[in-house]
């Protein structure tokens, strides 16, 4: 039921059939009327001929009897024609010589020179009537009728045949319509077939865009584009799984090795304690990595929903400097800019900017400089973390926000810090970019400003709760 209701083939065929039937019916009605009119015209022609003849004879013959005799002669051989001439004193002539002509004359009533149709004893007649001035000085009434049965029979037959033809044509249209629609839908089925064959393993397959009708080209192009996007994210996912396996395998391998070796022979308590402590450190790293991976996975699926509280950025910067500054023993730290406030998740922004800061401090040589600046730019808060030091090569910059990418080979950290920073910024509706030239490496982060005036000490509760 549902299938039929939605079948394009069936709907198209029915629509074709309905349209064809309507057109045929209209055409048929028109033809039938034309034929009818044509018959009426033929009949009228004949009737007027007989009327003229009767008048002519009536105005010449001297007596009614002579008139009747003359008309009898003239009308010999005429079938289906009725003629009645009535004088002032009664019927003068009837043709054929039967009561029928008299009845017709009576039924004709007030008929004139415009043909009228009337039915007499189950037969249809077309009738005209007129007066004639006889030679003997009388005004006689002439009624001429024509039996039109053969015409109506013909029209009825025509109509019957026509309706049968119409029915046959409608059925034929449905059948042919189904075939045509099926044929027309063939490219769609071909697309469906191709799509059906695509599995996760062969996302590289595409539907050919060349031999597709223009109506479907758009569909095919967007379908292929979707496949492209799917392929890309699948690729990323599988790369990611491979990376993840690698990153997890390394520490687990270490744990296993050292545990096995330690158990191979008896050791002192101190050695066991060392082993356990070392294991604990690895476990901690592992669980931190898992937590970070989970965070990133959630961010990728839009499941990271930052809370929106007012965050004064310079204050956040000071707090981060307090903490990470401890690591910058030989580098100069500079915090500068305007007191801007954004709405965001304190914990997440702390983490994002903290990761950038930590990254900068770790890559700044002794005597170098790390700066965090906060400015307003194009309606956004622009936070820049820059540091002096050797530039990051262009190729490394391109992938610097990818997971497990460490610009410096064998660098410390999980390789997730910048990826996390980026996903946090994106979740806040901002953007994070990196550039590196000469002696300066710069991470620029933008965040939407609060609606209220930036920079003017905001009376936000969160801002004063510190």
């Amino acid at each position: 039921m549902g299938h039929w209701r939605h079948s394009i083939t069936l709907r198209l065929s029915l629509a074709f059939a309905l349209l064809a039937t309507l057109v045929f019916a209209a055409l048929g009605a028109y033809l039938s009327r034309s034929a009818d009119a044509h018959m009426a015209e033929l009949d009228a022609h004949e009737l007027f001929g007989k009327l003229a003849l009767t008048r002519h004879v009536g105005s010449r013959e001297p007596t009614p009897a002579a008139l009747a005799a003359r008309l009898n002669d003239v009308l010999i051989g005429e079938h289906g024609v009725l003629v009645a001439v009535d004088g002032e004193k009664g019927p003068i002539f009837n043709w054929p010589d039967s009561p029928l002509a008299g009845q017709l004359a009576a039924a004709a009533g007030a008929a004139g020179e415009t043909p009228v149709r009337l039915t007499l004893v189950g037969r249809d007649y077309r009738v005209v009537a007129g007066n004639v001035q006889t030679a003997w000085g009388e005004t006689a009434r002439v009624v001429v009728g024509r039996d039109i049965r053969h015409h109506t029979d013909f029209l009825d037959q025509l109509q019957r045949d026509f309706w049968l033809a119409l029915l046959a044509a409608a059925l034929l249209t449905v059948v042919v319509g189904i075939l045509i629609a099926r044929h027309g839908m063939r490219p769609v089925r071909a697309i469906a077939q191709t799509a059906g064959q695509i599995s996760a393993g062969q996302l590289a397959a595409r539907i050919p865009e060349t031999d597709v009708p223009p109506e479907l080209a758009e569909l095919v192009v967007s379908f292929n584009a979707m496949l492209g996007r799917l392929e890309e994210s699948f690729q990323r996912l599988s790369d990611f799984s491979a990376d993840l396996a690698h990153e997890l395998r390394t520490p687990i391998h270490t744990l296993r090795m050292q545990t096995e070796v330690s158990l191979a022979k008896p050791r002192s308590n101190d050695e066991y304690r060392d082993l356990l402590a070392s294991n604990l450190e690895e476990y901690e790293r592992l669980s931190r990595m898992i937590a970070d991976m989970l965070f990133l996975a959630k961010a990728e699926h839009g499941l990271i929903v930052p809370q929106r509280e007012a965050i004064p950025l310079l204050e956040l910067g000071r707090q981060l400097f307090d903490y990470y500054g401890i690591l910058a023993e030989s580098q100069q730290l500079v915090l500068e800019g305007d007191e801007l406030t954004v709405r965001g998740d304190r914990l997440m922004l702390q983490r994002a900017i903290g990761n950038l800061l930590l990254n900068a401090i770790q890559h700044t040589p002794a005597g170098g400089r790390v700066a965090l600046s906060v400015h307003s730019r194009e309606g956004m808060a622009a936070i820049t973390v820059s540091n002096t030091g050797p530039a990051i090569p262009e190729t490394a910059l391109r992938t610097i926000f990818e997971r497990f990418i460490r610009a410096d080979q064998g660098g410390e950290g999980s390789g997730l810090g910048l990826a996390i920073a980026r996903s946090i910024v994106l979740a806040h509706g901002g953007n994070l970019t990196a550039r590196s030239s000469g002696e300066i490496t710069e991470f620029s982060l933008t965040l939407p400003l609060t609606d209220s005036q930036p920079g003017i000490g905001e009376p936000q509760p969160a801002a004063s709760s510190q």
Partner: protein
Amino acid sequence: MKILIVEDEAKTGDYLKQGLSEAGFTADLVRNGLDGMHEGLSGGHDLLILDVNLPGLDGWQVLKTLRAAGRELPVLFLTARDQVEDRVKGLELGADDYLVKPFAFSELLARVRTLLRRGRVREAETLALADLELDVLKRRATRAGQRIDLTAKEFALLELFLRRPGEVLSRSFIASQVWDMNFDSDTNVVEVAIRRLRAKIDDDFTPRLIHTLRGMGYVMEIR
């Protein structure tokens, strides 16, 4: 102090019990929600450590029943899922704190002590251990009578240790208490800060008071 542990994971439960017992608490362990509810209702415990994901009667239901029955003991719940909804739900149902698995045992211990201390002890204004003294109001530290200059953060760090003598403080706990950095980051900031604090209060004195427990954190005590 009696602590009730409701935890269905055998190993986790056993080690929780052992760890808490060795830290000086009396710990009872039950392994399902129903027993947890009965034990909790019967009273006599000062704190409940409740795993949320339990077979049969889950942690939420246990918590709800206890609170409905008017049991006001502090509840620390453990969850494996770091979902905001979970945390909010637990706190709304009347839990006092939560930890997401996997967590450091020292972290759990610190939270347990905080919960047990809450509203009970007025914070002392002067703290002392051996010959180290700290005047919290005057922000002054002395060791063996000698005045020691500390930065604000160093002072906060020392105060944290002195308020929790003998407790193992993990790096992330210290970072969160002293710097308000509430995420686990892979840095040695705390290590460096402790090294500096030691240089001021420990290196030139005996006995040493701040001890490193490798892999776990730091503890301040007289050994």
